[in-house]
């Protein structure tokens, strides 16, 4: 126990040491304090994109835009900082929206390269406009700026801005928006089938990142008092990224620690080495080398960053709080009324075909589904069952053919739109948000039903607390219905296979869908657990849900399904009641086997 206690203390001790070092350097030198605060702001701008699973290196470019805009407005037009700075931030936002439209279609390394190019373009423009920016020789602002008089106010302003940012990130991390970002970072596809509009959130993240970097740039201009295009080179972008990586990009406080460490370390080394023997002093790069070494150590020993180590512990102590569940209310509230007119308008697919690289995964499949029934979809592995579910849930678009949902064609709609239209699903290869608790996973399912905007989160409007509370209660009730109350607080990734499947079902039900597509819900369950699941599916039916179940457990399929479609090599080879199917020669041959 004491050893465990000691291990837990280490990350906290490191964090405290960093803070102490930061306070130490700040007290001695105001310029260092400004630098520290600005670097922390920059780190948060990197975090804004990283936690939406975007590797953007545009921060240095936006920092340059912010710096030059605010400086030019203040010096050339003589505007007060209170106007020049917000104007610079707004311009960054505008640029982010414009370049975001094409650039954010890219992901991963392509996005990184493209945003890096953006940074260089900004820098070249600065060099090419000497009348406005001072060109390659840089802009000295001290002439137009009462430098000494502004200093104290500047530091105070930077600190206040940072405090505001910290509040905004803290509040966001506990809200619907923060959950959506975590879901997108963990599993973008699963997030989209929870009704989360990934493109919109990526745009939001890029916009926030750009505006924050712009503000940091403006503060930088007014703090340093002179600007040079080389301040915003590629290396600046890498520095900003490394703050977030060292600190850990999983939690908002990670980049703060990272920036704190990577800013304080070189300053402390510079100062302490300055007093040491001449031999060492002659190595001008020594502080940088030692900082690099420190960076390596952190990455080797704390691969998720410092904040990750802290966060894991917090999760350990928070433990298994399921939250008090209000009993009496039924978690399986009847799904909304279908808007279609007749039963045949519920869901139908017509001549549905999907080709993957020459292979027809699904070929001319036409099926109709009526509301309030349980359908089985069976067939050998690779027969196209999962492809069917992917098509209906919008993760894959059909090569030809159509999907009609309540009288409207939905093929070509994006996954989050289809989820919001009432179609939820689970995955054959489980796609839970592994680091989130089981309860939080289910709350993500409520995403589309929480209407609080980010603004009301930040303003702490009562509606937000009420909606969050309701979502939490409903999620807890759903978990209770699936017999998972005791596991609600556990990170989903640590649950056993069968329990993870149940959490996925609860998460899908949280969308209040009309139609539930279950892809092998009983895989990894034994016979007793499977029959319990079967009873639960029948209960769902009684509540008015419509289900399409892909399964290999024949007891489950034959026990609960009213109609069964059998696929083989992408085609429907049989369609009928369980009795008809179990006597069908083709099905016995291809799938069930003869004993």
């Amino acid at each position, binding site marked *: 126990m004491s050893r465990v206690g000691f291990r837990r203390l280490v990350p906290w001790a490191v964090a405290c040491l960093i803070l102490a070092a930061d306070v130490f350097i700040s007290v001695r030198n105001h310029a260092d304090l400004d630098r520290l605060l600005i670097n922390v702001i920059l780190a948060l701008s990197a975090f804004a994109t990283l936690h939406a699973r975007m590797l953007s290196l545009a921060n240095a470019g936006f920092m340059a835009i912010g710096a030059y805009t605010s400086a030019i407005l203040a010096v050339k037009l003589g505007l007060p900082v209170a106007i020049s700075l917000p104007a610079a931030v707004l311009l960054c936002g505008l640029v982010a929206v414009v370049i975001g439209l094409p650039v954010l279609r890219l992901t991963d390394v392509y996005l990184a390269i493209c945003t890096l190019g953006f940074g260089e373009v900004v820098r070249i423009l600065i060099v090419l406009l000497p009348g406005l920016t001072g060109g390659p020789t840089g802009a000295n602002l001290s002439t137009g700026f009462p430098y000494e008089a502004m200093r104290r106010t500047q530091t105070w302003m930077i600190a206040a801005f940072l405090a505001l940012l910290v509040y905004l990130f803290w509040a966001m991390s506990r809200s619907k928006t923060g959950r959506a970002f975590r879901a997108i970072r963990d599993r973008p596809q699963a997030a989209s089938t929870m009704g989360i509009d990934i493109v919109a959130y990526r745009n939001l993240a890029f916009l926030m990142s750009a505006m924050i970097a712009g503000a940091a740039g403006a503060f930088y201009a007014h703090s340093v008092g002179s600007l040079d295009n080389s301040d915003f080179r590629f290396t600046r972008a890498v520095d900003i990224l490394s703050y977030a990586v060292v600190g850990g990009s999983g939690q908002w406080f990670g980049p703060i620690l990272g920036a704190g460490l990577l800013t304080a370390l070189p300053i402390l080394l510079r100062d302490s080495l300055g007093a040491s023997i001449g031999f060492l002093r002659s190595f001008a790069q020594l502080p940088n080398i030692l900082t690099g070494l420190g960076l390596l150590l952190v990455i080797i020993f704390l691969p998720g960053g410092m904040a990750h180590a802290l966060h*894991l512990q917090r999760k*350990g102590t928070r*433990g298994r709080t399921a939250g008090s569940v209000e009993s009496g209310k039924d978690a399986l509230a009847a799904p909304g009324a279908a808007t279609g007119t007749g039963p045949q308008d519920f869901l139908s697919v017509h001549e549905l075909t999907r080709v993957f690289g020459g292979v027809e995964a699904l070929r001319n499949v036409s099926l109709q589904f009526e509301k309030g029934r349980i359908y089985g979809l069976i*067939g*050998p*592995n*690779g027969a196209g069952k999962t492809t069917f579910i992917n098509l209906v849930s919008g993760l894959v678009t059909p090569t030809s053919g159509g999907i009609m949902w309540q009288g409207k064609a939905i093929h070509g709609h994006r996954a989050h739109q289809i989820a919001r239209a009432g179609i939820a699903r689970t995955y*054959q*290869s489980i796609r839970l948000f592994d680091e989130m608790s089981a309860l939080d996973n289910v709350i993500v399912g409520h995403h589309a039903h929480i209407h609080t905007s980010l603004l009301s989160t930040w303003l702490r409007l009562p509606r937000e607390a009420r909606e969050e509370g309701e979502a939490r209660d409903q999620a807890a009730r759903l978990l209770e219905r699936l017999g998972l109350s005791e596991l609600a607080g*556990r990170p989903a990734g*640590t*649950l*056993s*296979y*069968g*329990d993870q499947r149940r959490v996925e079902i609860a998460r899908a039900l949280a969308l209040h869908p009309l139609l539930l597509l279950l892809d*092998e819900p009983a*895989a*990894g*369950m*034994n*016979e*007793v*657990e*499977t*029959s319990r699941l079967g009873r639960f599916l029948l209960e769902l039916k009684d509540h008015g849900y419509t289900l399409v179940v892909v399964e*290999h457990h*024949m007891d489950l399929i034959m026990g609960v399904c009213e109609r069964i479609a059998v696929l083989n090599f992408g085609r429907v080879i049989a369609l009928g009641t369980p009795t008809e199917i179990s006597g069908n020669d083709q099905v016995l041959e291809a*799938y*069930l*086997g003869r004993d």
Partner: protein
Amino acid sequence: MGLLEVTDLWVRYGSIEAVRGLSFSVEEGSIVCLIGANGAGKSSTLLAVSGLVRAGNGRIRFAGKDITGRRADLIVRDGLVQVPEGRAILAPLTVEENLDLGAWTIGDQRQAHEARNRVYALFPRLAERSRQAAGSLSGGEQQMLAIGRALMSGPRMLLLDEPSMGLAPVVVTSVFRVIEGIARSGTTILLVEQNARQALRISQRAIVLSHGRLLREGESKTLLADPVVVEAFLGKT
């Protein structure tokens, strides 16, 4: 003394105790199955034996040698190989390349080639499809490939984690037949299965886990009729 001896094994993930003081042994040449509800600690037990998770406490002896805390790759060299849950084949590589990875511990090319031919003799389907990407195989064939890959190094003992999961009924039967065949040829098998009925039918002994602890241990035939086992895992019929 058994080929595999596990004594007082504990596996912990943070504050969660997955396996709590489990002891059992597996006789050479037999099939032993490990059954239990979800989260009972079956997979954790296998992972601890194969060295993929650290045993918190306890001793694991294989062929008379203490392998507790030994590196997973060295345990494979000792002749104890796991077939992972969900098959874990490398989809973009060909069937043959997947098999060759299983022969990683064999330095000699000729020996590796012989091992491959043995696997092809056991699974003719894999020979037919040797140049295909493993991801293009059907689920049952992928399971055969995962087992074949594990057999490449000529292990004394196989750990199978839910080989029947997600497979069509007709394929499940053939997978169990293959497992019996491997055991007959002398390889000892520790089998984790949710399909408890089938697992009990092909195994000689069974270990029943509940909440990380031993609930029952004995001959599979006896356990098939044990009321507690029937109630908890087999259901009616």
